[in-house]
């Protein structure tokens, strides 16, 4: 059984993803200059595939850094408070920071990350997300670059996982209900 058999349907094809990622790259190119030297902050693990493709379209001088976070458990969901497992290598004070996310769902985690980074006084702070699920939003977080708005479905692929599987599918698919129901 391949991973693809667990996918009910393809929501965003590889071709559509690649075209949109190139467009996002152009939009980011138009926003920053070499002098801005933006710092792209990748939130692991989910965003690494998106970032790998997006960053290859960027023309201006830029740098990258990584954050890995983990939740403290169910009680912190609405506050968005997370444990930072890997903090940024770079000091972002006075820097132009662009957070790169795979998906914005409730917005709670992203809100927490932006509040955390803002305390470090960056020159600017923007957010680029591949996917957004507006119907799930609990906290309104401003998004500067959005790849696709998607319905409230269980999406996997292109970095997005279910129980650590499916991240490497080159497209975004909707997981069959039996797959995620079966594990509960």
């Amino acid at each position: 059984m391949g991973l693809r058999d667990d996918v009910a349907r393809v929501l965003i094809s590889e071709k559509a993803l690649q075209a949109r990622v190139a467009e996002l790259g152009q939009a980011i190119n138009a926003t920053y200059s070499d002098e801005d030297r933006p710092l792209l902050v990748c939130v692991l693990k989910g965003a690494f595939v998106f970032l790998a493709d997006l960053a290859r379209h960027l023309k201006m001088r830029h740098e990258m850094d990584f954050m890995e976070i983990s939740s403290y458990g169910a009680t912190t969901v609405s506050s968005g408070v997370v444990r930072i497992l890997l903090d940024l290598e770079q000091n972002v004070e006075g820097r132009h920071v662009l957070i790169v996310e795979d998906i914005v769902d409730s917005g709670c985690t992203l809100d927490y990350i932006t509040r955390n980074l803002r305390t470090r006084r960056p020159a600017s702070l923007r957010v680029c997300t591949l996917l957004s699920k507006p119907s799930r939003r609990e906290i309104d977080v401003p998004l500067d670059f959005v790849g696709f708005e998607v319905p409230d479905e269980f999406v996997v692929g292109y970095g997005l996982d279910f129980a650590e599987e499916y991240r490497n599918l080159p497209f975004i698919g909707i997981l069959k209900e039996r797959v995620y129901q079966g594990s509960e």
Partner: protein
Amino acid sequence: MRLPDAIERVLLDEETIAAQVRQLAAQIDADYGDPDDLVLVGVLKGAFIFLADLARHLTVPHHVDFIALSSYNRGTVSTGSVRLIMDTRVNVTGRQVLVVEDILDTGYTLDYLIRTFRARKPASLHTCVLISKPERRQVEVPVDYLGFEIPDVWVVGYGLDYADRFRTLPYIGVLKREVSVRRVAEEDGTAG
């Protein structure tokens, strides 16, 4: 294609890299069969582009994890000591581990990783490296899957950086010698 001023020439273009990454993925697929416990460990920051492309070509089921290291440098000269910044999330004991690295230079980092993981008793332990510079080797390390052997030139792009620059060029280019030499002089405190 216009190259950045600091880049002398393209060593490996996008098509060449993509073809070799596909080839490596096919080998890994063939060797692992149908594992239920394979974890690819990408070494940050450099390996993330290679890992993102490699994983998308794999059909074998696998999980992805990351590890972050830094070396204790004296100027640009590695002392061979490695500091673990972030460990893997998953416990690799009893699992099949494939370490994914962008570049193998002195071998100190990969040697450290191999010894670290071996102590955790994985079911198997293999290494996949995109670029190797055999002339630079200080310590011998086993490489199971190798993309390219290259001469001792400073390369950037496809995850590889020079002072955090040029990491996301879609190709691998050779840095102009005067650029890397100037940097070494600055770090040694001998620059004018």
